[in-house]
């Protein structure tokens, strides 16, 4: 019987969010050695900022803890508070990565798991984000839910909350034509959570299309309407302004009626989309190709999703496209297998 003895390879993963953590766990499970490089002081990426997760409302901390436990493996070296300052291709298709801590890591493959940036809502000046305290973004609402501190500007439980979809997505005025995919269902998730805690608070979602793309999302939408009495208005708010009480006055077209609509609200929550981090230095140095949406471009959308234009450099998670955590985890595992096969081919 032939016995295949695999040589242990070294993989540098850049970004320690859900994608990086899961890929690290999978690669270590396959016997490889991994450096998991995270610029923040802790792993978890955007998952750390969340209270609970759609579609089943599972606490975000619980999911993160489970993922971190899964990634406890002597083959994984976690380098937090670390950034790669230089990355060169060296002999034998390998990479030399210098960190800001003075280490040099020689890797057989690099996995980009750098995630996304939340759209800066201040760029949509018509909503007054950063000017009116009653206008907040979706992560600020998530933080209020996490800290049990859902308040209007007067410090009271809000009487009304409006969630406005498609901020910085599907909007050519800010250069983002694409749909960020997760914000519709995030709005539904957050609307339910507000109503669960404060049944007397009125909650409205202002949408252009409701995109419930994943399993059990449509059910969540229906639950929001039926059980939690969330109202849905089809129209994009065109402007918002605060009055002297700090209340926000909004203007939209109720497109299903065909009339302009005005409404006051205690809180206006902007459902910000995802943007690619085009300043990421490693990608710049390696010349990783980006698509029209500025996320990393796959070598092929069907068969080589996790491959890039640079041999030995792979991608996983939301740095490739707006993606939820479930898909991010699956995508990270797929990236691990792609890397494993690539390294196997070469030895």
């Amino acid at each position, binding site marked *: 019987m032939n016995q295949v003895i695999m040589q242990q390879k070294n993989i540098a993963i850049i970004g320690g969010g859900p994608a990086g953590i899961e890929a690290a766990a999978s690669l270590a499970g396959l016997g490889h050695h991994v450096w998991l490089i995270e610029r923040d002081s802790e792993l978890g990426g955007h998952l750390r900022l969340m209270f609970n997760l759609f579609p089943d409302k599972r606490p975000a901390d619980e999911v993160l803890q489970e993922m971190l436990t899964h990634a406890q493996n002597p083959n994984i070296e976690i380098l937090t508070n670390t950034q790669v300052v230089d990355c060169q291709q060296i002999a034998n298709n390998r990479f030399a990565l210098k960190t800001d801590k003075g280490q040099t890591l020689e890797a057989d493959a690099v996995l980009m798991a750098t995630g996304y940036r939340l759209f800066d809502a201040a760029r949509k000046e018509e909503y007054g984000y950063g000017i009116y305290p009653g206008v907040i973004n979706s992560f600020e609402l998530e933080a209020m839910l996490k800290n049990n501190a859902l308040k209007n500007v007067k410090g009271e439980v809000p009487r009304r909350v409006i969630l406005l979809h498609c901020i910085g997505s599907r909007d050519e005025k800010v250069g983002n034509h694409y749909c960020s995919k997760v914000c519709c269902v995030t709005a539904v998730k957050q609307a339910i959570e507000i109503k669960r805690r404060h049944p007397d608070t009125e909650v409205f979602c202002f949408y*252009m299309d409701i995109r419930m793309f994943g399993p059990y999302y449509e059910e969540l939408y229906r639950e929001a309407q039926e059980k939690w009495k969330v109202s849905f208005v089809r*129209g994009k708010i065109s*402007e918002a302004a605060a009055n002297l009480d700090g209340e926000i006055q909004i*203007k939209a*077209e*109720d*497109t299903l009626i*065909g009339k302009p609509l005005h409404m006051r609200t205690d809180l206006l929550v902007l459902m910000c989309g995802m943007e690619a981090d085009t300043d990421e230095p490693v990608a710049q140095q390696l010349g990783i190709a980006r698509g029209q949406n500025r996320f990393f471009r796959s070598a092929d959308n069907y068969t080589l999703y996790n491959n890039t234009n640079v041999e030995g450099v792979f991608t996983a998670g939301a740095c490739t496209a707006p993606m939820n955590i479930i898909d991010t985890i699956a995508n990270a595992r797929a990236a691990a297998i792609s890397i494993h096969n690539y390294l196997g081919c070469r030895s």
Partner: protein
Amino acid sequence: MWGFKIAKSQSINYDRNDKEIMRTVLDSEPSLRVCMACGGCTSTCSAGNLLPTFNIRRLNTLLQRGEYAQLRNELNNCMLCGKCTLVCPRGVNIRNIVLNTREALMKYESDTI
């Protein structure tokens, strides 16, 4: 006694509607095709907030179904201020659509007299 009268159908008869004006406008300003009906234009429109029947998003949709009756009366309310085009997330050139529709309607009417 019961009165009988024949009610005029309220439905859009797309097959019977004349499509020439629609085609002329869509050819001269193809950006109308990418409208996603968000209502941003109507919401911000100065004329629409004052006049109960003037709804530019709806008028542009009527145009694309070959329903011109309302356009004739309504489109003159547009002040061509361009606010709608400023907010449109799809970059639809609404002002130009209004101008081209007015022109097409006028031409069509003089042609059919």
